[in-house]
């Protein structure tokens, strides 16, 4: 069904991006309000579309015919179904709250118009990504969010470290994009279409040859690892914390990084073509989640802890993807968007209140000076730790439960291991999140100056998200999976398991919290002993398992070496030699022929007469 509102959802933030920049330059104060209004309007249209969506219906809108040559048709089409609805609601809903928060956070920054313009452009790109009806349209949004991420990480570009963090994110995303392009090429070649509604039909996918299906699945997953920060491409996400905190909340926690999950869910038919692909996804997700959780334990920068926890939680979502429980992954996307945006924005308020201090070792005792922020951070911590009845409990528990139902020939005998590992990661998550809470909000203040609570425009959106982190799971877990059953394969409805189930399911989280409380509040001396005993582990964790160094050795060094060889051998001898030879020939010819131009009119006249005579001789019919 055609519906103009689908187009409005995308176009309003896009327009907002231009207008807030143009008008914002004249009056910086209006930029934030305009940008927020644009996203809120988009949210309104998304809600009205979502309300109008019934059964297996979907809304479409054709913006233009875009590319059309020979028998190739690539219309710029948008598509709104239940899966897009969930993503759009999160993007615009959480997005508007973060825009509102940014008005307060960026109040003293001089380039606010640019900031809000980028934020709106990001929302527009993200909406194109989740609303695109064909892979190329999704790819536009995919590249758009990558671009905005780059622009916003390097927002304070006068600091070279920040600028290079932006570049790192961009380059790593490009590696993933290569996978996207390869997958598109394979699918178009075998299926003759890139329309997602066509591609997900089993009879169309049956046309993909089996080895091509394997490559397409791996390529799609590579694309997702780039965007969603999975091994080996995750090191850009922690560095992305160089951007302003609302950006971290919006892009690097709540929305853009879930694009990979969305792509997996949208193209689940392709990744299930070969059972090896889900197995690869599962193992990668498990490794990423574990490594990121271990790194998070030793981080001292409050935003870095949250960044690694994001990577770890994204790993959890991919675990669900790997066992085919796409709607469970989506559920975790939604609850994660609530509590992680809340955590990041609380951290932003803390940083704002502590005069741009990010090191938790110089915080502490903030519960007294920032009670509202402490409350939200606490609620979100309980949510991410997976304590019933907070939001994270339901999604995390559903993931752990779905791991038990894995049917993959490549995982035979390993699924229990992965289930146990995931539970350990959940304990770890609760541990490091509680650690960050204790270091930040409990004890006594270790920094300088007087921390102060953030203004209302910042605390209000944070409190809304905190409320969502508390009740989001309870409200949504009934019927979320059945709601998504049209576009996604069905999963077993998650029960929650009654009071006993709640207590048992919260055990890993409670264990982590108790451990952190014991080590950081009751007996700090034991903590130091443990740290000394595990110095190797501590070293590995605080140096991020030397991943940047390993990547540097395995990827960057060979590429450097190769480019050195290419530049010496190919460039210096072959290309320059060929170029010189061609140049030499033309120069010699030129030296010979330039003698014709004597500069004497009489010579030219003679040439003219001679040529005229020749022409007459050749072409005059009478001889």
């Amino acid at each position, binding site marked *: 069904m055609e519906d103009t509102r689908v187009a409005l959802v995308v176009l309003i933030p896009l327009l907002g991006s231009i207008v807030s920049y143009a008008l914002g330059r004249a009056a910086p104060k209006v930029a934030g309000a305009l940008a927020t209004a644009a996203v809120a309007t988009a949210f309104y249209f998304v809600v009205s579309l979502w309300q109008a969506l019934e059964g297996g219906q979907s809304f479409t809108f054709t913006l233009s015919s875009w590319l059309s040559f020979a028998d190739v048709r690539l219309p710029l089409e948008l598509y709104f179904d239940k899966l897009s609805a969930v993503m759009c609601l999160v993007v615009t809903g959480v997005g508007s709250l973060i825009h509102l928060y940014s008005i307060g956070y960026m109040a003293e920054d001089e380039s606010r118009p640019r900031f809000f313009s980028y934020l709106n452009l990001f929302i527009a790109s993200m909406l194109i990504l989740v609303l695109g009806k064909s892979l190329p349209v999704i790819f536009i949004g995919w590249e758009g969010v990558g671009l905005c991420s780059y622009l916003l990480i390097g927002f304070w570009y006068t600091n070279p470290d920040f600028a290079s963090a932006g570049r790192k994110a961009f380059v790593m995303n490009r590696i993933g994009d290569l996978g996207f392009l390869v997958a598109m090429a394979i699918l178009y070649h075998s299926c003759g279409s890139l329309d997602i509604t066509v591609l997900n039909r089993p009879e169309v996918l049956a046309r993909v040859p089996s080895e091509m299906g394997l490559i397409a699945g791996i390529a799609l997953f590579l694309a997702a690892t780039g965007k969603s920060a999975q091994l080996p491409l995750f090191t850009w996400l922690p560095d992305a914390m160089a951007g302003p905190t609302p950006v971290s909340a919006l892009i690097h926690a709540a929305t853009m990084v879930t694009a990979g999950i969305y792509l997996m869910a949208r193209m689940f038919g392709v990744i299930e073509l070969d059972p090896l692909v889900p197995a690869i996804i599962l193992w990668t997700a498990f490794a990423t989640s574990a490594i990121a959780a271990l790194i998070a334990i030793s981080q001292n920068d409050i935003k870095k802890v949250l960044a690694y926890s994001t990577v770890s939680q994204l790993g959890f979502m991919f675990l669900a993807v790997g066992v085919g429980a796409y709607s469970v992954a989506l559920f975790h996307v939604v609850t994660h968007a609530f509590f992680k945006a809340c955590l990041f924005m609380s951290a932003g308020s803390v940083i704002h209140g502590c005069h741009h201090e990010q090191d938790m070792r110089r915080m502490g005792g903030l519960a007294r000076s920032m009670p509202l922020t402490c409350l939200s951070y606490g609620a979100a911590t309980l949510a991410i730790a997976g304590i019933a009845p907070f939001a994270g409990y339901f999604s995390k528990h559903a993931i752990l439960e779905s791991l038990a139902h894995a049917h993959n020939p490549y995982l035979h005998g390993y699924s229990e291991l992965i289930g146990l590992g995931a539970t350990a990661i959940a304990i770890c998550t609760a541990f490091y999140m509680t650690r960050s809470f204790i270091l930040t909000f409990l004890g006594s203040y270790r920094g300088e100056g007087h921390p102060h609570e953030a203004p209302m425009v910042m605390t209000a959106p944070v409190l809304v998200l905190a409320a969502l982190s508390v009740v989001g799971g309870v409200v949504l877990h009934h019927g979320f999976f059945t709601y998504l059953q049209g576009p996604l394969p069905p999963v077993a409805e998650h029960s929650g398991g009654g009071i006993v189930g709640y207590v048992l399911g919260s055990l890993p989280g409670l264990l982590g919290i108790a451990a952190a409380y014991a080590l950081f509040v009751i007996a700090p001396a034991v903590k130091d002993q443990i740290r000394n005993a595990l110095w190797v582990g501590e070293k590995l964790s605080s140096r991020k398992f030397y991943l940047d160094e390993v990547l540097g050795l395995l990827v960057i060094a060979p590429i450097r070496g190769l480019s050195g060889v290419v530049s010496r051998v190919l460039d210096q001898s072959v290309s320059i030699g060929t170029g010189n030879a061609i140049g030499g020939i033309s120069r010699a010819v030129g030296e010979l022929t*330039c*003698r014709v*131009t*004597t*500069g*004497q*009119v*009489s010579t030219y*006249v*003679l040439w003219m*007469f001679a040529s005229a005579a020749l022409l007459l001789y050749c072409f005059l019919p009478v001889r």
Partner: protein
Amino acid sequence: MDPISSYLGISCLLFTIGGIGLCLRRNAIVLFMCVEMMLNAVNLAFVAFSKIHGNLDGQVAVFFVMVIAAAESAIGLAIILSVFRSVASIETTDAAELKW
């Protein structure tokens, strides 16, 4: 030789003189006159042919040639003038900056 053919002969003669002058002389004004002479030789031939064929086509063409010649002399004199301004001479050998 019949009278009309002699007109063609004179036309040929004038054209050749103009062409040779164009090749041999260096003074731009003289070159200019040579070109005019060649144009007029052609005009003469046109009129002669017009008489031979008994229609006015050739004479109409003459008018065109005259108009073009007027335009050409306006432009040509302007060029000579600006050449003189820059090299202080109207000898074509002096204005040979762009040769190899």
